[in-house]
């Protein structure tokens, strides 16, 4: 693949090393002459020195028809302009736009960019997801903990979505039984032919030993 990396210092260096390993063809543009020299020395690549938000810099670096451009400058407005020039003028197929202000993720999407990334935004999402998971797995030990009831929320991208119960291949020696499915507003006592859907909440009976494997398996 032909990849263009516009701006960035350590992030650019990291990506260059990663893409070099995978033998991608790289074009690197950076406005800072010293960063250019450093990146070039570190990675034995040629780095084009120019402002990537200027059309002539992108033209000189010959980025036309590249597969992906990644905009990494520290200024959000610059990255917006770089990506829009790449898409509109240079016919680059995909752009990844990094932003420092997390609020610009939603705004840049409204302005036509598909992949907008903010590290703060990702951190927030990760934290949210973790706390959701922790809340949703509720367990209830029964008969002096010989068995446990586990309630699991099914995310639409889990791999068991769309499978019938009889086709779910739990790992060997997992002693589990899906006894009930909450599917708003219904409560279903499933048979082998019941299909799992995203948003379902499963109530599963299992031995305490199998519980961990069960959660791991379902959340794939």
């Amino acid at each position: 693949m032909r990849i263009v990396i516009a701006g960035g210092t350590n992030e650019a260096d990291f990506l260059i090393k990663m893409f070099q390993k995978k033998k991608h063809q790289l074009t690197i543009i950076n406005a800072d002459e010293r960063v250019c020299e450093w990146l070039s020395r570190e990675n034995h690549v040629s780095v084009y020195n120019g402002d990537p938000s200027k059309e002539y810099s992108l033209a000189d670096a010959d980025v036309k028809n590249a597969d992906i451009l990644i905009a990494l400058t520290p200024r959000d407005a610059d990255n917006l302009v770089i990506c829009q020039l790449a898409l509109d003028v240079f016919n680059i197929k995909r752009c990844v736009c990094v932003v420092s202000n997390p609020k610009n993720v939603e705004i840049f999407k409204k302005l036509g960019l598909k992949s907008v990334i903010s590290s703060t935004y990702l951190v927030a999402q990760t934290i949210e997801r973790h706390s959701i998971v922790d809340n949703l797995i509720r367990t209830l030990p029964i008969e002096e903990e010989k068995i446990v009831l586990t309630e699991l929320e099914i995310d639409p991208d889990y791999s068991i979505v769309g499978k019938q119960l009889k086709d779910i291949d739990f790992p060997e020696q997992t002693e589990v039984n899906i006894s009930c499915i909450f599917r708003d507003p219904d409560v279903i006592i499933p048979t082998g032919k019941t299909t799992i859907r995203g948003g379902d909440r499963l109530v599963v009976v299992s031995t305490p030993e199998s519980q961990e494997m069960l959660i791991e398996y379902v959340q794939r």
Partner: protein
Amino acid sequence: MKKNRVLIIGLGRLGSSIATLLSVEGEEVLVIDKSEDSFRKLSDRFSGYEITGDVVDADVLENAGIKSAKTVVATTNDDNMNIFIAQICFYIYDVPNIYIRLSDNNKKKLIENTNVKAIYPFELSMDEFKRLREKERI
């Protein structure tokens, strides 16, 4: 006459002169700049509001009342910032009148298909040069 709300972002010489002009004409003018220092450029005849803030955070625009603004003028010394402001105004807030300054004519493409009106100092200077030269020939 009902006052129209005008936001002027970036107070260089152009921004502060436009701010004074519209303020004297009786519009409700709000000026926004990153640096408080730049408000010194405003003339004594300016009677609008001064807001210190970086519009790369859209909350600054919202707090300045962009939703009810009739006109936004982006005259920061950074083309990319002016384009960013113009696109937000057009695509997100439906601002009826948007004016920006662009030093780089090539960036015209990024505001095509919008109602954004751009001022190109380069083109204006070039036209003036041609006009002066024309005079000399006669």
